[in-house]
């Protein structure tokens, strides 16, 4: 039990919209799995967090990244490209979570080696269901690198 608690699950949420951040937190709260959620509000902050630069020296290495595509300063596609080009970061699964339904966004992100692409549902129940499935899939179905 102690070892389970000690190995808490870390998720980095890269999202600039406070409404979405709160909604994700609420949805996470409704799912059964407890996660340690960190937040980066723009692309540069996300990369600084991942590389433990500046204030993020003590940042935990996330087990999963939830990435929005439309971000200030450095957008989600660039962040994705940099993560996947970085040997130390590329194994961290990246779930693109966006309002976009556009075919070119889907193709583009998979071309950049995103692990999956999810369109945020407008409906709250569906959104909660999506967050729950993400958690269930990535933290109990999938075997992640330790």
């Amino acid at each position: 039990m102690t070892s389970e608690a000690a190995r808490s699950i870390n998720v980095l949420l890269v999202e600039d919209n406070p409404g979405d951040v709160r909604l994700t937190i609420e949805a996470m709260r409704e799912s059964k799995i407890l996660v340690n959620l960190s937040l980066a509000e723009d692309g540069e902050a996300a990369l600084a967090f991942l590389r433990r630069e500046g204030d993020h020296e003590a940042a935990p290495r996330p087990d999963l990244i939830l990435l929005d595509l439309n971000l200030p300063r450095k957008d989600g596609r660039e962040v994705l490209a940099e993560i996947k080009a970085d040997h130390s970061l590329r194994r961290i699964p990246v779930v693109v979570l966006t309002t976009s339904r556009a075919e070119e966004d889907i193709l583009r992100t998979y071309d950049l080696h995103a692990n999956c692409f999810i369109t945020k549902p407008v409906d709250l129940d569906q959104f909660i269901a999506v967050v729950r499935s993400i958690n269930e899939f990535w933290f109990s179905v999938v075997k992640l690198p330790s």
Partner: protein
Amino acid sequence: MAAQDDGPGAARRAPALRMPFPYRVIAALGVLWAPVLLMMFYSNSRSAARHAQEMMRQQAASFVTVVLASRCWESASGGVHAVEPGSVAQRILDSEPNLLVRVHLASWNPVRAASPADAWESKALLSLKQGSREQWGLQGGGAFRYIAPLRVDSGCLSCHKDGSYRAGELLGGVGIAFSADPYLAAQDAEIRGLGFRYALMGLVGFSGLVMSARRLLREDAGKEAAIRQRYQMLFEEAPVAYHEIGLDGVVVAVNRAECKLLGLEREAIIGRPVWDFVAPRQREMSRENVQAKLAGAAPLPVFERQYALAGGTLLTLEIHENRMRDPNGVVVGIRSAMLDITGRKEKEEELARRTAELARSNAELEQFAYVASHDLQEPLRMVSSYTQLLARRYQGKLDRDADDFIGFAVDGAARMSRLINDLLDYSRVGSRKGEFRPTSAGAAFDTAMANVRASIEESSAVVRHSPLPAVDADPVQLTQIFQNLLGNAIKFRNGARPEIMVACEETPEEWRFAVRDNGIGIDPKHADRIFQVFQRLHSNRQYPGTGIGLAICKKIAERHGGRIWVVSQPGQGATFHFTIRKKKEGLR
């Protein structure tokens, strides 16, 4: 007049300087006339000479005949002495002192040794001995000489009975000599007459030839003048601006239309290099081009050039050029016809500008619709999610009104979300389009069928179709149009089991598809409205939907160069027709 330049070959053609046929005939006659006359003159002169000699010969021969005949007559009358031919001749001559004839009996064995045969006689005697009947000829000094044989006859033998003479024996010749001068004078007079006549004939003939040649030349000159005048008129009166330039590029001729076009007097144009009239920024190029064209033999293409008017106004001219050549094919300049296409050019540019503007504004509109609907999603999701969260947490904990309000807010947000998504789909028909490529309409139809399978099964619809062709289309959009029309045909059913028939006809220009159903039908007065964005004929409760499906179909058909329309009556089903143009040039 200069020859027309009719292509690059003209420059290499050998310059042909051929006399026209009538001139060649005249020249040939002129060349033949003198020898013919000369030959005739020569032949007639010869015959006059022969004639004179013949007269002399006959004169001499008759004299010999007289001498011999006289002797025979004397011999018959018994006179012996008189029989001797020499004395007969002498007596005749003595009796007629005016007769300037000399008679000489010549023999290689003369009776009187004092008068031997001279050189001519000796030679002639030799011929007589060989059987000649007579010898004659003209001798220097104008003497005509004649000699005929003198033979022994019976009269001779009556005296010479010693047997030294035999009858028929050739003793020598009777020679006659007289002056040829009168005959030769007559002959010369005749030849002079001939000469005069032939000279006259020659003169008359030559003058005739010369006159015909001059007449021909005059006629040709007249014809050429007429042609030149006609050319001049065509050039001058043409409603098209014309000018001609020489090898130095200087204008040598200009017509009225060009003067009017350039707004200049003729004198202000002629004598100046043609590039002086070209707009300043094209002037140098024009000069180089003109010089290259005058020097070269390459074909002259039609081109456009800007000319500047005195006030600085620019004219755009379409210029057609021909090289001018002299009759030997040598280039002497260029003739240009100029069409003022300034107006047409401006209209074309205006049209191109408007087309580009329209395309840009269309693209902007599509982009706007896309961005707007895309960006609208974000706040909408917030409204929708948080009203739902509100409902989730506080439903039943506030009062009844609060629950209603939350319900309306959630509903409204959901409907707005559908509208935004439909608008996005609509804008994507233009902005997220695929390439036109050979597409099986049958395959597109099958995909559409698969996409609406759930509603087909749920409504037990029967869908049939005739063979569908391969067409040039955007396959995704072709599927979309089938899918929307099938979806509508099922959605707007009238309680009976939906029966749908899909068919295609070919016309020379396009493919015409038809989707026929047995549904509720449409009042023809709404036939146009149903294809507009978000235009609906029914409440959401009766037939849910936003009213975007047919608007998307219309946009797809129009993008394929076609159109869409409906043929229907309320309660009698509807047939939706749409076309796809076969040739897609100019479509995007």
